[in-house]
């Protein structure tokens, strides 16, 4: 580990330094992903730009007029303690918080940092996919918002300009009778990268699924994505175990491609994805009608 560090005065200064020194400069927030990457020699930045001094400005969770804004430097602990996890519609964040890393990692890891990893194991990317979240970017040419699926363009690849920093994540409070669920399966919950994870946002009307968003750690790319075919099949289906399971078993294999590696076979991952998706949809659905 050999690098120099730059401590920016403010966000603009950070962007300008990153822009001038691209691609040799990398921003560091909590460092829970970055430091192991550097230690493993997978990344050899010349400069780290320390964002910890910007925390005062970029750590917040605000819920206003049906819109949720989460500052990029909000830690997972702060997110877990925020009003968000207490809201019926966002119980999925409580699921996520409980299986995210471990107690100490959660006090360092940040929301923006998790999104910025652009890997399938980034739980928040999966969750934000289900919520159709937009990500705020700020750079030398100003700021803009992009769809999370557009931003996370590939494994360890963010579709952003040099010097652009993630400033916040924005998404809508879903309509009433909606809720969320997040489930992850791994060998040691948290720290070890999960085998598969799923997030669901479900809206229920008269016992029937009116709308559903279903996101996985992987669908057909190497980063989190949505199972659109399965979502379509689930609309109008009664919120019952066999009905939901039947649709998922039929549609998910048509759109999901799972790879085998030393952790698990592709076939096992697909099987687990089906089971977890069913549970996530049913859990979110039950929460949506107030049945926890």
């Amino acid at each position, binding site marked *: 580990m*050999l690098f120099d*560090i730059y401590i920016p005065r403010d966000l603009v200064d950070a962007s300008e330094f990153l822009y001038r020194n691209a691609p040799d400069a990398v921003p560091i927030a*909590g*460092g829970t992903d970055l*430091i192991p990457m550097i230690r493993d020699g997978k990344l050899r930045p010349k400069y*780290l730009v320390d964002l*910890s001094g910007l925390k005062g400005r970029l750590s917040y969770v605000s819920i206003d007029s049906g819109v949720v804004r989460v500052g990029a430097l909000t830690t997972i602990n702060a997110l877990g303690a925020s009003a968000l996890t207490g809201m019926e519609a966002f119980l999925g964040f409580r699921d996520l918080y409980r299986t995210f890393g*471990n*107690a100490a*990692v959660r006090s360092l890891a940040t929301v923006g940092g998790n999104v910025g990893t652009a890997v399938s194991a980034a739980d928040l990317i999966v969750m934000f996919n289900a919520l159709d979240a937009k990500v705020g970017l700020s750079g030398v040419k100003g700021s803009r918002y992009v769809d999370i699926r557009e931003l996370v363009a590939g494994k360890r690849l963010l579709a952003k300009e040099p010097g652009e920093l993630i400033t916040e994540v924005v998404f809508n409070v879903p309509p009433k009778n909606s809720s969320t669920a997040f489930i992850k399966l791994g060998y040691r919950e948290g720290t070890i990268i999960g085998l598969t994870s799923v997030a669901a946002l479900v809206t229920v009307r008269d016992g029937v699924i009116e709308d559903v968003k279903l996101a996985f750690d992987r669908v057909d790319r190497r980063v989190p994505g949505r199972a659109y075919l399965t979502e379509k099949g689930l609309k109008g289906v009664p919120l019952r175990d066999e009905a939901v399971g039947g649709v998922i078993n039929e549609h998910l294999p048509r759109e999901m491609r799972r790879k085998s590696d030393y952790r698990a076979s592709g076939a096992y991952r697909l099987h687990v994805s089906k089971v977890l998706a069913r549970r996530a949809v049913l859990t979110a659905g039950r929460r949506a009608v107030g049945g926890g």
Partner: protein
Amino acid sequence: MPEGLGVREVPVELRVNGVKHVLRVKPYERLLDTLRRRLGITSVKDGCGRGECGACLVIVDGELVPSCLMLTVQARGRDVVTVEGISSRSLHSIQEALIKVNAPQCGFCIPGVVIAAYWLLEVKGNLNPSDDDVREALSTNLCRCGSYHRFVKAVKIAAEELRARKALGARD
């Protein structure tokens, strides 16, 4: 390589166990190394170096932090607490309880366990933790000697002791 990479030092001021230190550190120096090598605080152990084992845990401004993942530069102006800081005069109730239930085997993980338990009981102020609360607070800590059940037992004994002491204090 940028000019002078690996040579430059950054001035950093931080408090460790209540004592202010003014240091010049390498940009890439981890808080873990500053504590162990510069300040001689050896309760902090270098285990996995990637936030997975909890051997290096410290408390920074009231947060439970793996010191292997925090650069010393990032700890500038902050308050760091280690086991030395909570047991300078006598053993802390958590340490006594760990000894009582024979939790330490090799002992390597114990400082991290003490800090995680201290964070739960004294920083977060949960003096009546459930088994799950304890497991959650200790979720970072790996113990290859497998003393996990004893940790839960010990932390609950320590909590009881601290509760009793608090009640006594309140009566005085």
